[in-house]
């Protein structure tokens, strides 16, 4: 019997090989399926977050912003010197026809009826539909004006020569239709604009003075004199104190696109609300502090809190973790004590994070309160005056990720080729010189990778911070390790549990900010790692 008879031959061999290959194909498709599933789940997650962070919102204002602006200029025009309001347009037209120093606003029908006495002034750089700026036939200078000249003409100009050089120095008389009439409203919207964001800061501050109570205005002036305020600040305070927008209902992006008709039907039932398309992640959202009003709430406080906490975590856990890893890898003798420590570190990496929160509460918040509240150094924040500070949170998260950092750093140190150590010792280097000059520099990429993963985890951690006492409603930015704080995940958690619809969208927006920050942190760390990466 030859050896060959033990192996399949001919068609049997063909079938056998085919079967073996088929097995491989099945496994490959399973792996592909697993990968696809992962990618799909990730996409769905991202899409659902993006879906919530864009879309229509029904906004109700206490005072409509357009009405506020129009009302402001209307008052200005009606209260200007020599201004007269006529309830009857014909009366206005007759009075205007007799007065060469007057200028008036008319609707087209009335103007045509009095065309014998009046002349329409042409506007050089625009048009005001349905509105005629008219003067008497006796007026021989006002042929045409620009939009820019119309603005003072109906408000602050005292004499004609104030508007344009060369016009007579006689006072301007303004004949206006009554407050709230379509002619006046169209004129104001056209000349001055009716969007608060287009208004100069002086006008905005004047509107503020008009609408704020005297006490609130005094407080506002006490913070910073009015003439030092920027347009942005004025708009912000106007929105917060005067317009007071309330989002009464929001729709996600998919609803906004697919069910526009339903949204419009819902809007028809609430006539005083406006439909606005919103991007919830705005620059204002990132730079505003937390607020109880969803319209004004932002994540600045939470971002600063998160960065502070992660900074403390980083400063504590990375050096300690690397130090422990170096000891265990390079100096540990493998004694029973070392093995005990090693086993415990590995187990600690698997302890649920809430347990670390309990530990942090007992140790950092309570037992070490003089340290974590800063009272030991006389730096305690008077509004806090307990251990629930950034420092306590940072140290708690530091403990949480310490085992992860140690395990990863040990792997990285172990991966440094033995050849480098031998070469170093062979030249008469001491152990420390070998570690410092060869082991650590070559382990840094691996240590950084592990630290990135650990820090990312700390950044997104919520449970232990709830236990340690992160504040859920905090409106003041933290200013040091002894401040009370909130973090982005805590903020998201708190917002999702609010009843107002808008907070759900804010939570989605905050998640996007959190993801973007995480990606940015990781990108920086990966760049650092690539910089240190060596080829050998």
């Amino acid at each position, binding site marked *: 019997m030859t050896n060959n008879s033990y192996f399949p031959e001919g068609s049997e061999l063909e079938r056998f090989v085919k079967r073996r290959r088929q097995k491989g194909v099945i496994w490959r498709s399973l792996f592909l399926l697993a990968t696809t599933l992962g990618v799909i789940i990730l996409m769905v997650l991202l899409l659902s977050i993006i879906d919530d962070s864009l879309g229509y919102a029904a906004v109700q204002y206490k005072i409509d912003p357009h009405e506020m602006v129009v009302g402001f200029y209307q008052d200005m025009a009606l209260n200007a010197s020599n201004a007269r309001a006529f309830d009857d347009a014909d009366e206005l037209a007759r009075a205007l026809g007799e007065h060469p120093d007057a200028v008036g606003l008319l609707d087209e029908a009335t103007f045509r009826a009095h065309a014998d006495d009046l002349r329409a002034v042409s506007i050089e750089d625009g048009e005001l539909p349905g509105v005629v700026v008219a003067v008497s036939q006796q007026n021989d200078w006002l042929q045409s004006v620009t939009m820019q000249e119309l603005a003072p003409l109906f408000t602050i100009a005292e004499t004609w020569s104030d508007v344009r050089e060369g016009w007579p120095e006689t006072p301007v008389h303004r004949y206006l239709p009554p407050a709230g009439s379509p002619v006046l409203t169209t004129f104001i919207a056209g000349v001055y604009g009716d969007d608060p964001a287009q208004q100069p800061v002086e006008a905005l501050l004047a509107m503020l003075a008009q609408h704020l109570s005297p006490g609130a205005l005094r407080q506002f002036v006490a913070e910073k004199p009015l003439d030092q305020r920027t347009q942005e600040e004025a708009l912000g305070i106007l929105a917060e104190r005067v317009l007071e927008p309330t989002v009464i209902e929001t729709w996600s992006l998919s609803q906004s696109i697919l069910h526009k008709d339903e949204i419009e039907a819902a809007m028809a039932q609430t006539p005083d609300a406006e439909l606005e398309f919103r991007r919830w992640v705005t620059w204002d959202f990132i730079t505003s502090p937390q607020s109880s009003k969803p319209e004004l709430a932002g994540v600045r406080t939470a971002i600063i809190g998160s960065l502070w906490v992660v900074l403390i975590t980083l400063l504590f856990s990375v050096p300690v973790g690397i130090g422990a890893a170096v000891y265990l890898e390079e100096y540990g003798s493998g004694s029973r004590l070392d093995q005990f420590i090693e086993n415990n570190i590995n187990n600690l990496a698997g302890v649920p994070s809430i347990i670390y929160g309990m530990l942090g509460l007992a140790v950092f918040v309570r037992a070490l309160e003089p340290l974590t509240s800063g009272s030991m150094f006389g730096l305690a924040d008077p509004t806090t005056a307990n251990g629930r500070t950034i420092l306590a949170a940072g140290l708690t998260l530091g403990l949480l990720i310490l085992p992860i950092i140690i395990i990863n750093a040990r792997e990285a140190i172990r991966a440094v080729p033995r050849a*480098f150590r031998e*070469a*170093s010792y062979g*030249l008469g*280097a001491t152990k420390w*010189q070998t570690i410092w000059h060869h082991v650590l520099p070559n382990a840094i990429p691996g240590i950084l990778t592990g630290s990135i993963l650990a820090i990312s985890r700390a950044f997104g951690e919520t449970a232990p911070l709830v236990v340690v006492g992160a504040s859920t409603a905090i409106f003041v930015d933290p200013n040091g390790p002894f401040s009370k704080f909130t973090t982005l995940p805590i903020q998201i958690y708190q917002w999702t549990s609010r009843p107002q619809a808008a907070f759900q969208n804010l939570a989605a927006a905050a998640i996007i900010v959190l993801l973007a920050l995480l990606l940015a942190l990781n990108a920086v760390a990966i760049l650092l790692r690539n910089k240190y990466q060596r080829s050998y």
Partner: protein
Amino acid sequence: MADQSSSNGHYAIEAKNLNVFYGDFHAVKDVNLTVEKNKITALIGPSGCGKSTVLRCFNRMNDLIPVARIQGDVLFHGKNIYDPDVDPVQVRRRIGMVFQKPNPFPKSIYDNVAWGAKINGFKGDLDELVRTSLEGAALWDEVKDKLDANGYSLSGGQQQRLCIARALAVRPDIILMDEPTSALDPIASLRIEELMIQLAEQYTIIVVTHNMQQAARVSDYTAFFTVDEGRTGYLEEFAPTEELFTTPRSRITEDYITGRFG
């Protein structure tokens, strides 16, 4: 270490009743070996015979293996380097080593050579030291224009010569070479062999090699190691190279060098 005058003063290094254990395993037993100054001594033998282990005993590299235990004496300038008052760091400063696989540091060529001198407190002109060391390793002409390049940008043979230059830079008395050409092609190997003969004018060289022709070509003395039934290595024969290869005293040596086993 002080240069003590003793009856063994003309030997560069000497092993007396050297025994090495890895845990319970007796790796090498009762090695007695004397190495002449400014000569090349080759250690040959089949795989697992303990020749590399013996080599590593000469500069206490076995200390790095936690389970290794050494009995017996290694006399360097008449002083046992395993005495408790001897610091292995000082021993390695005097007895340099070149390894089987070229292992430059992932640094520039310049730093590869200068680093050993720097950590050993060298106070002279580093540039000059780097140049003479690279010249000593017959590498200067090839790298003088790219001293900033990474050591790993060189070819295998150049890397090994860089490692030799690195060892020369701390001005050792003895250079241990652990199969320095086994990872290199024949031409690069030949250059290393020529270099060894040159270096022997100034340095004592102990080289472990698998290649009997290499031992025959370059060495002045050859030590033949083999293993007994318990896989424990021992020194079978030690003699001037020519004598060992032409008229071996031992039957086992003869079988090995004629290629009947190993």
